[in-house]
């Protein structure tokens, strides 16, 4: 399985180590790790809860992965997304791509995270000292995703 939704902390570096292990055909591995930040919009973040839509999430992630594989020559793809409550510094998401050449690996990695941000049903609830608030979608995320439309 190359697409996983997990409810407990995961270790991106251990996942990447397993992703690379024993491969002699791959020349290039690109990865992106998203982590909970302790600050957002000038307010301190105490914790973050990721809600998702089970069933639709896995389906959308699998579709985004298939789209990346159709666009770039990839040996392998890994997408892990955490859900539930997590603390600053904890990983939210890991995207990794393996290809013979770096351009394919780097572009596919950027594509995957851009599309995931706008097409996978996750919602972030931030806990601040003033209370909990839902994170608003950013227009810049839509623009980042739109550059891959064709």
């Amino acid at each position, binding site marked *: 399985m190359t697409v996983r939704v997990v409810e407990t902390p995961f270790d991106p570096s251990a996942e990447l180590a397993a992703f690379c292990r024993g491969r002699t055909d791959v020349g290039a591995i690109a990865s992106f790790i998203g982590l909970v930040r302790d600050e957002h919009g000038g307010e301190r973040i105490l914790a973050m809860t990721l809600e998702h839509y089970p069933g639709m999430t896995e389906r959308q992630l699998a579709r985004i992965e298939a789209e990346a594989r159709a666009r770039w020559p990839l040996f392998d793809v890994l997408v892990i997304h955490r859900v539930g409550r997590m603390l600053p510094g904890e990983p939210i998401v890991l995207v990794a791509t393996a290809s013979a050449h770096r351009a394919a690996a780097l572009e596919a990695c950027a594509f995957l995270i851009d599309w995931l*941000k706008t097409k996978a*049903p996750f919602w972030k609830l931030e806990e601040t000292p003033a209370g909990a608030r839902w994170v608003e979608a950013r227009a810049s995320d839509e623009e980042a995703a739109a550059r891959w439309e064709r």
Partner: protein
Amino acid sequence: MRIRYFAWLRQRVGCSEEEVELPAEVRTVGDLKRWLGSRHPRFAEACAAIGVVKAAVDHEFADDDRPLAGAREVAFFPPVTGG
């Protein structure tokens, strides 16, 4: 048909899911929004703001003109913010 709500829309409506029997005249996602809005005033309020309420039919993103024939589950939620 099962209706599901997520994130702040779930909190506004006050439930995460409900089973409904649709009247025959509710044929599309847009029809369903209006019909649900008559039951949940705060859902109607959210739908009045453009782009704030997204929908999925059987796990696929769907626009207002998407027909409901054969659908088992419709979900409503705010724009996604994962990653």
